């Protein structure tokens, strides 16, 4: 199998497309130009860095390098969850809630996939473990961010209703049940959509990559199905963990709504 190597000019052409959109946004005063350019630059810098790091990690293949890299990925994901919230939990909760939920979900699902399903030798072989963990973290990050954002926003908007229900003697869990259901549903929407249209509308990224690299389509399909299921499980676990703990944190030991715990 031989992959067509991309030249700097090939990438420059793709980059000019992004610049064109940015120019369009700027001329039309849509006001999103800055974040588009920053995100595009981040992609270049981060992926180049990743390429270099992976080269070293793949060559070394020592478990502690892989562990360190996983930790860096987790912390970056946790930070991303936090900064994307409009109203976040104040104090260390803002960072720890998302990070620990992702740790519980993405890490356990990745471990299961490596130890029981794919079984590379050694089980932490970086060619498998790093991309798997990356895909899981990236998707659970999405679910948890959407879910938590929905939770904190809805609680803020419906604070009078929650308070009214508490005043009628309902338990805190009952008073927030609608919002809790809704937030978990919102967090799961992207992966449910992705699974629904996979193959019909969209060719999932990982499968595309494998096919481009010369893997037979059916092999690539099997991997893609595995990944989709792992992502669904990881996103579900992570979102449920984050929302359930987040809901509890919004009430104190006397079941009072504590919006002062949101920033």
């Amino acid at each position: 199998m031989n992959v067509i190597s991309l030249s700097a000019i090939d990438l420059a052409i793709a980059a000019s497309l992004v610049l064109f959109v940015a120019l369009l946004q700027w001329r039309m005063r849509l006001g999103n130009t800055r974040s588009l350019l920053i995100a595009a630059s981040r992609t270049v810098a981060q992926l180049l860095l990743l390429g270099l790091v992976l080269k070293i990690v793949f060559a070394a293949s020592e478990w502690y390098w892989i562990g360190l890299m996983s930790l860096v990925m987790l912390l970056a994901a946790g930070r991303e969850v936090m900064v994307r919230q409009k109203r976040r939990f104040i104090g260390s909760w803002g960072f720890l809630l998302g990070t620990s939920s992702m740790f519980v979900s993405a890490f356990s699902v990745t471990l299961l996939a490596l130890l029981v399903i794919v079984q590379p030798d050694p089980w932490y072989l970086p060619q498998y473990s790093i991309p798997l963990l990356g895909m899981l973290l990236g998707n659970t990050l999405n679910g948890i961010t959407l879910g938590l954002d929905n939770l904190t926003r809805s609680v803020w908007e419906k604070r009078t209703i929650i308070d009214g229900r508490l005043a009628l003697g309902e338990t805190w869990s009952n008073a927030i049940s609608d919002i809790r259901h809704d937030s978990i549903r919102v967090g799961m929407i992207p992966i449910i959509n992705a699974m629904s249209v996979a193959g019909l509308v969209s060719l999932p990224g990982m499968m595309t990559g494998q096919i481009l690299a010369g893997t037979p389509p059916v092999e690539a399909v099997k991997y893609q199905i595995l990944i989709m299921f792992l992502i669904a499980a990881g996103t579900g676990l992570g979102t449920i963990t984050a929302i359930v703990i987040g809901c509890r944190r919004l009430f104190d030991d006397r079941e009072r709504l504590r919006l002062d715990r949101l920033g």
Partner: protein
Amino acid sequence: MADLVISDLQSRVPGLLVQRLAALNLSLQGAEITGLTGPSGSGKSLLLRAIADLDPSTGEVSLGDCNRSSIAAHEWRKMVAYLPTESSWWFETVGEHFLQADMVSLQTLGFEPYVLSWKVSRISSGEKQRLALARCLSRQPEALLLDEPTASLGDSHTRDVERLVSDFIRKGKEPVFWVSHDPEQLQRLAQRVISIQSDGSIKEQTR
């Protein structure tokens, strides 16, 4: 029925910097209405919310031989019901908000039984206020904290509400704390009136 005994109660809402309101020591007698009055913003609602344990507070409240701190907060609020001025409704129809509807109290307030099938989005603020009282009483509380329960009602409906509460406590002997801006209403209803002064001190009015 049991008295509601309040000792050294002070609201401690986080973020509210000015806490000028003096600590409250008071015993509300069963089957009696105690009035609470004072200028707007003097902390009447804060006081009721503190009694219901909806806001953090210091001090102790007990109903009969039951201490607030000895039972779960939602159990306490089931017994000591706080009725806010602005009621909240979250289901589509009125009836879904009632655990068991009490037709007699709905009738006393001037509603037909089919009020339960009304859509919440179509009822007026006055209707909401009366229905909220019916909803509160239908859960059989053992003490009532009513925050301006007739604020958006006309004279005739105000009388309906007063009659319903009086009937309710004649049967169950519940103590009632009734916030009102209307001295005549408190004159009609309350056996005693507590008033919050503009300096935050709390006095019992002599009549």
